[in-house]
């Protein structure tokens, strides 16, 4: 029943997104703009500043992720459908996992465009170690979205939710962003440091376990006012 609920929520969110294409277009536009603006600042005479690519990649993911999180829950607020979801005779953590999975799929689409763009603009060998890079992206995005989904759900009825979400989200997800940046930088430096990238990947996986466990534990009490 848990997985079935997750699937129903994901399918519903994807169906709505396919109809409106609102989140995917806005986050993509934002992420691409972010990378292009930084490319003008950090690439001189065709040569990028050292280590800039890793930082810019993760800034683009974090900023566009915040945008996607806000919009994903704005939909549930408009007709108070979040309350209808909460009224269903299902495990409420399954609703959280469903919303999280929907956000992750949308961010995967954004990353599928942004990663090659960063590789192109900053001449960064992001595809030299594809498994490690994919692992860093997957674990980093999951950790960021796990906390973000919880906060976005908690703030859905707050009047200044658009301001509060990044204020609450960024300080807590700083370890994830640092882990993503350092892990990616270890893969991009001239002497690739695979052990260091693996250490950061492991740390990100640990963050994911901690954040998801805490979110599953706190989602129900925080949603029952």
């Amino acid at each position, binding site marked *: 029943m848990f997985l079935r609920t997750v699937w129903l929520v994901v399918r519903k969110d994807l169906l*709505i997104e396919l109809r409106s294409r609102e989140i995917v277009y806005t986050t993509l536009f934002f992420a691409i703009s972010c990378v292009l603006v930084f490319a003008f600042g950090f690439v001189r005479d065709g040569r990028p500043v050292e280590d800039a690519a890793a930082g810019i990649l993760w800034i683009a993911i974090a900023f566009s992720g915040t945008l996607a999180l806000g919009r994903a829950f704005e*939909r549930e607020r408009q*007709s108070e459908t979040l*309350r209808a979801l909460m*009224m269903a*005779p*299902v495990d409420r953590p399954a609703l959280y996992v469903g919303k999280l999975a929907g956000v992750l799929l949308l961010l995967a689409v954004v990353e599928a465009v942004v990663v090659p763009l960063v590789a192109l603009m900053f001449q960064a060998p992001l595809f030299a170690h594809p498994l490690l890079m994919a692992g860093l992206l997957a674990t980093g995005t999951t950790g960021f979205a796990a906390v973000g989904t919880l906060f976005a759900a908690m703030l859905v009825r707050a009047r200044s939710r658009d301001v509060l979400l990044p204020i609450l989200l960024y300080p807590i997800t700083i370890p994830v962003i640092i882990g993503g940046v350092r892990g990616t930088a270890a893969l991009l430096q001239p002497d690739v440091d695979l052990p260091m990238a693996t250490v950061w990947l492991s740390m990100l996986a640990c963050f994911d376990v901690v954040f998801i466990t805490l979110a599953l534990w706190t989602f129900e009490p925080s949603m029952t006012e």
Partner: protein
Amino acid sequence: MPPRQPDFTSLSFVDVSRHFGRRRVLNRISLCCEAGEVVALLGPNGAGKSTLLSLAATLLTPSSGEIRYGEQTMAAAGPGLRGRIGVLGHDLYVYPELSAAENLTFFGRLYGLADVEARVAAALDRAGLAHRDDPVGRFSRGMRQRLALERALLHEPRLVLLDEPFTGLDDAATGMLRERLGGLRQAGCIVLLTTHDLETIEGLVDRAVLLRGAALTVLDELDGGPRSLRERYRAAAEARA
């Protein structure tokens, strides 16, 4: 398999209070509603009617006191209890980007209903929306209200909580809703509704209570009394003022 859905034949608020920060919205409210009864919850705006419905819907927890569904509390009964509760809120709880059928099918599956397609088809027929396959966002307020009512009743709940159910309905739809509420009473549902439209519910409700100043007052003489519901409401409101 969906969680086991425990049944019950009464809803009791026992000394229920609810505060929001320092603001006291409900103060030691006690009320019992039985199966086959339609109870109107009346009161001015901001009196706490929607808060009381949210408490019964398990969307809020009481600051003190207890809400019993039959002999059980929500904590004892588990999430399956929510499968016996249907809520039509002030907001309509439907996705404007989805069609009426998609909305009902989604919620039917979420509730783990058997034979979802047949139930959805019957519900769309009742709402007069069987011919509409466009997104709900393009519907009129009345059409959305009819759809929202069918969504709330799709899983045949025992406890039906309706917050301003007549809002946005034309005369024909109002008549149909009155009939539907009569049918719910016959089926043994516990119906608790809020409204300001006292003339519309005249003769429909078994009991009416006034919520004002965080406390409840029962309006008397509903069975064939000489005064209208509006007059009794005014009298009770003046007595509490």
